[in-house]
């Protein structure tokens, strides 16, 4: 009983040290804010790039004029998927955008470009999963290819894309933890800084818990979207 009390007492003292003392809770909030900002902007950039690349690759199948763009898209996907994210971030920070001293926008861009390659393949697969007859029906009504894509193909593709896309968003959110390498104080870095100053491991668990809460929230959002998109499915 005494031992249990001592463990609990130590936990409280540690918690006080790593959260309350010197207003350290602010460091978690700063880190959380940076993590969320980087992830959100990167998701936006990644989705835009992914959508454009996927659509180019979709049209390039039947349009010889797009072959060069198609090859460039292939190159982009190959290079991004074939090299470590951390190296891409470091190259972006130390070589390409070395004049930008604030790592946050660099991280946003680098993670966005990274995510785009994965999102492109997810969206391309989603578009291909829609039956060919759907686009033929749209075109036969006189809709042009853009209208057919936006009104008929993409709305149906979204349903197939969503699970894989959220999976990518979750991976991306957690992957932002490597932004600490380019001096961005995101959640992981914050926790590790506090650990380094206090010699207490608890901050790592706190940050892990915060990631977990965010991922659980995203999963809940995914389920809600899936339910909403399921209309028309019931037989």
């Amino acid at each position: 009983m005494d031992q249990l009390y001592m463990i609990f007492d130590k936990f409280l003292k540690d918690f006080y040290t790593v959260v309350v003392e010197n207003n350290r809770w602010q460091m978690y909030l700063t880190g959380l804010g940076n993590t969320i900002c980087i992830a959100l902007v990167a998701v936006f950039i990644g989705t835009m790039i992914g959508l454009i690349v996927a659509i180019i690759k979709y049209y390039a199948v039947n349009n010889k004029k797009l072959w060069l763009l198609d090859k460039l898209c292939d190159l982009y996907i190959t290079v991004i998927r074939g090299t470590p994210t951390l190296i891409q971030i470091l190259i972006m920070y130390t070589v390409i955008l070395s004049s930008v001293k604030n790592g946050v926008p660099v991280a946003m861009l680098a993670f966005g470009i990274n995510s785009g390659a994965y999102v492109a393949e997810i969206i391309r697969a989603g578009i291909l999963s829609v039956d060919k007859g759907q686009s033929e029906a749209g075109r036969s009504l006189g809709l042009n290819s853009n209208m057919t894509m936006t009104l008929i193909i993409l709305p149906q593709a979204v349903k197939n894309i969503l699970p894989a896309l959220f999976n990518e968003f979750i991976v991306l959110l957690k992957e932002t933890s490597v932004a600490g390498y380019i001096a961005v104080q995101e959640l992981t870095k914050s926790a590790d800084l506090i650990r380094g100053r206090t010699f207490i491991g608890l901050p790592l668990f706190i940050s892990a818990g915060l990631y977990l809460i965010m991922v659980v929230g995203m999963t809940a959002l995914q389920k809600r979207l899936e339910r909403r998109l399921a209309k028309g499915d019931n037989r």
Partner: protein
Amino acid sequence: MITVKNLQKSFGGNNVLKGIDITIQKGEKVVVVGPSGSGKSTFLRCLNLLEVPTGGEVWFEGQNITDPKTDINKLRQKMGMVFQQFNLFPHLSVMENITLAPVKLKLQTQAQADEQAQRLLARIGLSDKAHTYPNQLSGGQKQRIAIVRALAMNPDVMLFDEPTSALDPEMVGEVLEVMKELAHEGMTMVVVTHEMGFAREVATRVLFMDNGQILEEAPPERFFGAPKNDRLKEFLSKVL
């Protein structure tokens, strides 16, 4: 209305259409029959350029649709098409399926399109299905709605690509009934089908295709009563 000159289509090295010539007048109901793989669906799909011909020309209402400068989207608005697999849009309600194209192409306001859709649905007896989704409908209902969706564009010609081949036998009748009604109203129709009864009853002209060519074309009485081509005689002896 439609003139086809020496139409050819090959997929890779496979020549599916080997020179088709035919003229279809306004108000005609042309039924195309033939064995599987004879090229009849490909022929039909070349008429609205869902398949791009590898040779020859297709003229529709005075315009060469195979000319790259022609605005094919404009011409397709006047050529309704009905598919074997219905191809209704599953993410849209029946009403939205019918009104999507006329509204998005700015041919009608939403109110006009809705009213027309209601009228068309009433005609095929499916008014109560206006707000359901395609997956809740039977095959016959889906195909009738697909026909109505094409009609909502007020086309000058309707192309039917084996419209009853994917249906349960008991639902074939209701779809053919709608097509017959359409024929009686004077719609120009090109129908690829295996329904010989429909061909006999509705067609003004029946074409027999085999191996990428039209081997015989005749009014239904002569086509079924006194076929000349040996291959057609053999075909009819099997299907009738």
